[in-house]
């Protein structure tokens, strides 16, 4: 059997004594650097906690405030999307609710009140919920109803928007109606990035548009009345959703296009979901 015990180190010779002070200082500096790095690592971890959790708590509070306010207006029979007397356009206060978004593919508990945003929605507006680019069409209107939403944190309405398939229902509830949009691309059920659909234009042949695309952050063309096609007059109602891509970055944007499939008028006094909208949830159960 071999001896596995470690021999005790020999006592340091008296000549090394003078270097221990320097060694002590070196050890002190190294320990300081080590502790600083560990501290910075913990701060970064805490930032991740903040980003994916804490911001959601704040956003949820904002979201429930705008939702309550919007439903209150509906109960009082007020439609924020109707033009004011004596004017042609509605004047919707920035940051207030305009409609509620439902996406059956993302589950029954997915519902977000869309708020009115600036020409380019601000951080404060996006924290309340998905925000409408105010210069684009309103829900159901001919043209392009464009909405931006956060992907990670801040309520993360568009976290799983990459799971949408072509033909999936995207529902917007307003005071006057339930608007059912469908993600572009035929056949249905495909990755919308790989399939296209014809989008009609006024006085011209239809243009082709895929259901989803990844674009540069500067691609304002996705907000055009007929996305990606400048100077083209729209003749159908489209909806555009924009979010960041990949998650956690600002390097690109993910864009999902849908087109208006049908409109269901409701009285909306009890604010219950109509049967035919409920049925859309069965489509994605398979």
């Amino acid at each position: 059997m071999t001896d596995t015990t470690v021999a005790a180190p020999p006592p340091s010779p008296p000549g090394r004594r003078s270097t221990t002070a320097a060694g002590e200082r070196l050890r002190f500096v190294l320990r300081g650097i080590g502790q600083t790095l560990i501290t910075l690592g913990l701060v970064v971890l805490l930032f991740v906690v903040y980003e994916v959790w804490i911001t959601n708590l704040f956003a949820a509070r904002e979201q429930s405030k705008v939702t309550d306010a919007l439903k209150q207006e509906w109960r009082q029979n007020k439609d924020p999307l109707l033009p004011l007397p004596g004017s042609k356009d509605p004047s919707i206060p920035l940051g207030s609710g305009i409609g509620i978004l439902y996406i059956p593919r993302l589950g029954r508990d997915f519902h977000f009140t869309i708020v009115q945003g600036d020409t380019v929605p601000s951080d404060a507006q996006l924290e309340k919920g998905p925000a409408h680019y105010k210069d684009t069409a309103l829900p159901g209107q001919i043209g392009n109803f464009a909405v931006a939403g956060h992907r990670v944190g801040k309520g993360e309405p568009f976290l799983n928007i990459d799971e949408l398939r072509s033909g999936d229902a995207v529902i917007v509830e307003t005071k006057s109606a339930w608007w059912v949009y469908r993600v572009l691309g035929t056949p249905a059920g495909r990755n919308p990035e790989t399939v296209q659909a014809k989008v009609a234009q006024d006085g011209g042949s239809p243009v082709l548009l895929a259901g989803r695309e990844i674009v540069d952050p500067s691609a304002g063309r996705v907000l055009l009345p007929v996305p990606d096609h400048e100077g083209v007059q729209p003749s159908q109602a489209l909806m555009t959703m924009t979010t960041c891509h990949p998650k956690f970055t600002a390097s690109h944007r993910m864009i999902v296009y849908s087109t208006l499939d049908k409109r269901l008028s409701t009285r909306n006094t009890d604010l219950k979901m109509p049967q035919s909208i409920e049925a859309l949830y069965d489509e994605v159960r398979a």
Partner: protein
Amino acid sequence: MYVWIWRHLPGPLAAKLAQTLLLVLLVSALLLFVIFPWIEPHLPINQVTVPGEN
């Protein structure tokens, strides 16, 4: 730094532990509710919009 703080906390071990916990919570709260919300808009993360038409 941590050693220095630990040495300067008064009281017996239990008291030192309680104060340490309190300090950690204070620093975390400061980071989560003051520093991060302030620093976040300046970071290149989570930008979801594209520029408007004009």
